[in-house]
């Protein structure tokens, strides 16, 4: 298959990769760029473990061709924070125990990040509906909702303080 050069910005860095048209974005991120935070869970867009942020939208990267990301601005979990410098959402998931096995967590947090951009002050129901595309098989979701609501409150408080 004819390969093509795909240029995209991932976590603030411009990346050029050579990929076949059939290559999925998740595999380019994982295999070619070494970003193994986003995971493959279902291959059918249902579980959300592969969620990344593309041009301001949550995208299940297991069902998008890499070629479709030409010129896109992509954020993965690695772009939100690091173990030594956690994002507010990451800190909140850690403290409120919004995870168990942790496999869905990168996608879950990446989606939650976009959700709070879309709706900075969500109700519990907003969170439950807004996160319905991300499956967690371990926790029963209670603490995930709590983590997101707590992070939202904290982010709003620091925004207010800054104003």
């Amino acid at each position, binding site marked *: 298959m004819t390969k093509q050069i795909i240029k995209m910005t991932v976590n603030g860095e411009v990346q050029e990769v050579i990929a076949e048209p059939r290559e999925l974005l998740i595999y380019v991120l994982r295999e070619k760029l070494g970003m193994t935070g986003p995971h493959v869970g279902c291959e059918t867009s249902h579980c959300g473990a592969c969620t990344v942020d593309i041009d301001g939208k949550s995208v299940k990267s297991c069902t998008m061709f890499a070629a479709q990301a030409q010129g896109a601005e992509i954020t993965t979990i690695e772009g939100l924070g690091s173990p030594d410098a*956690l994002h507010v959402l990451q800190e909140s998931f850690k403290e409120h125990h919004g995870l168990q096995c942790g496999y869905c967590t990168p996608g879950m947090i990446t989606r939650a990040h976009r959700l709070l951009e879309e709706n900075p002050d969500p109700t519990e129901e907003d969170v439950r509906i807004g996160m319905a595309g991300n499956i967690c*098989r371990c926790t029963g979701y209670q603490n995930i909702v709590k983590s997101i609501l707590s992070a939202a409150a904290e982010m709003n408080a620091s925004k207010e303080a800054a104003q």
Partner: protein
Amino acid sequence: MNVNSTVIGKPISRVDGRLKTTGAARYAADHRPVEGRPLHAVLVKSSIASGRITGFDLSALQSMSGFVRFVSHLDGALIRTIKNPVDGAFAAGEEYTPFENDRVHFVGQHIGLVVAQTLEVAEAAAKAVVVDYETSAARIEFADPTAEVRQPDLYNTGEELQVSRGHVEAGLVEAVEIVKATYTTPIEHHNPIEPSATLAVWDGDHLTIYDATQGSVNDKNYVAFGMSVDPKNVRVLNPFIGGGFGCKGFTWPHTLIAAAAARAVEQPVLLVLSRKDMYTSCGHRPYTEQEVTLAADADGVLTATRHRTQSYRSLVGDHVEPCGMTTAMLYQCDNLEVTHSVRVLNRPSGTPLRSPGEAPGTFALESAMDELAEKLGMDPVDLRRRNHTDIDQRNGRKWSSKHLLECYDRGAEKIGWGRRKAPGQWRDGNDLVGLGMATACYPGYRMPTQTRLTLDRDGTLHVGVAVQDIGTGLYTVLAQMVAERFGTSPENVRVLIGDSDLPPGPLAGGSMTTASVAAAVDDGCRALSEKLRARLVDMGHTPGNEPLVIDGGALRSGPLSVPAAEVIPTDVHEIVAEGGSDDTYGFTGGVETDKSFYSFGAIFAEVRIDRDFGIIRVPKMTGVFDVGRVINAKTARSQMLGGMTFGIGMALMEETFIDDKTGRFVNPSLGEYYVPVNADVNEFDVEMLDIPDYDFNPFGARGLGEISNVGASAAIANAVYNATGIRVRHLPIRLDDLLEDLPR
């Protein structure tokens, strides 16, 4: 045990939280060999249910750029023939060897593996393999009259599957009310979000495997046997596992196939199962048909109990869903018969799925108890109290610690049981509202475990044991246990698990890891403490009788305080001690004891059902559990919430359909196999009685995780009955089970 511990029982945040929230925690498929990229592998699976392979046409593969190798049974003895069990060194999910011969036993059996430079090529090549078969008659339908029926004697725990005591017929004659009904539960799949994955890396005759497994030691022994290498030459690494729920418990063919392929191509091979692969590669909970008979006198005292379970097994896997094990022990009843039979079918193999036996078994038993209460005109909680016993009905032993009555009390109070009305009588707007409850229970298991405790010159403690954290919180729990013994903070403890080179521990199953490591850590800490005291004496110090505290980089005993850097000679860097326990509890052949070990609980559910559409919601669920001492309030609570949510899935959503003609699973994807999502769940209430069971281990924990899935489906089914007056005796309960008969 320090009952006022600042460490044990506290809601300490998990120590792996930073890695897991940032994508830095590496799961099996996230690892890369030190040098270069691995080759990618994709399975070729059988499309027939019975027969033999007569040939592979690989002509389309040869021209594919990036295609490396196809391996199958035609490659000769890639894998040594395994007879399971092999001297107890490991437990495999199936008692056959992959690629052993041309036989096909079920649809989805692994019959070949494509190895290629990229996943895309491997996928395309796997699709392009043309398999020729000679098919033979397959027995797929559950009721196939030609299927062989077996009555296995024992479950894999050693517990008897055919139990009889007293005279059931006599008990039936004594009764004033009898319930006799058949309950069915569907095929279910574990569906952890992480699919199974194996990265196999050979270095000469040494093999390193990054595997998504619930048991690194078991995995190591299985692969070593299949690869004909010394187990010492195999190292399995599983520092993080993306859930398992049983499907990564025993070892399965794909791990061995990946290792064999990597040896054949002399390069590292990464095999990640697809979601569809997961449905036929690593087990499922088989369909069950359970006939339950409960008989009681006018006071509600059980006079006879019968629980007959029919299920199936594959031709190569011997899993039996042991539904009646709970029935044999739970309620006082002198006349009892519990039987299990399995039909041998051309279906993929079953395996334990979170609370195997207990979950489907209590759906039947606890639904029947609800029906009996209704017939007797008794409150369902009262009926259970009436038949409560402090004696294990199987063997006459006392329970080590049983506080089930308190679970009933607390649960009833918390859910507001007093609000319950007669069936179909509670309306709220357009909703029919109902309350239901069920008893939960799960055996206490403990397995031999060894640990290594280390103190380094910084004063940091290290604990190592080849167990694994499948999401439960074991990293944190181990840090807490060691911190407790040395009077320090969990932050001062480094935990090494997920590596088969560490001192051996059990696989993560049967809710037994915490109890197993508790005894081993206790002994390891004692051994380290003795060594350190001896060292202090050698140095001329006189440590007192006070417990040795290791905190702030120093060892303290009473007024004595010596920096760790002084205690540990510069040439050794650390002081190491090993300890452990060889004791087994809960399995047949374990420690002789006059007590029985079980965890108990009560689950209460409120359901609301839309009167027009029959949509079932579970706005409230309360679980109260007696699981011994809780080590970490945060991780334990999360386990319980997750288990109760698992129960909602079992009660209302989860079902795998099989096509009786072809033997194919019809819905092998998360799009068509429904599991609870965020929007399906509400705030649940969990309470742990937190009463230590020191007869079981020195930390008093009995283990949890599986128990919260037990009883949940019955509690919901009973609540549905209470709301509607409609008794649904199969799972999952869907709106079309209710629509026609909903009270108007």
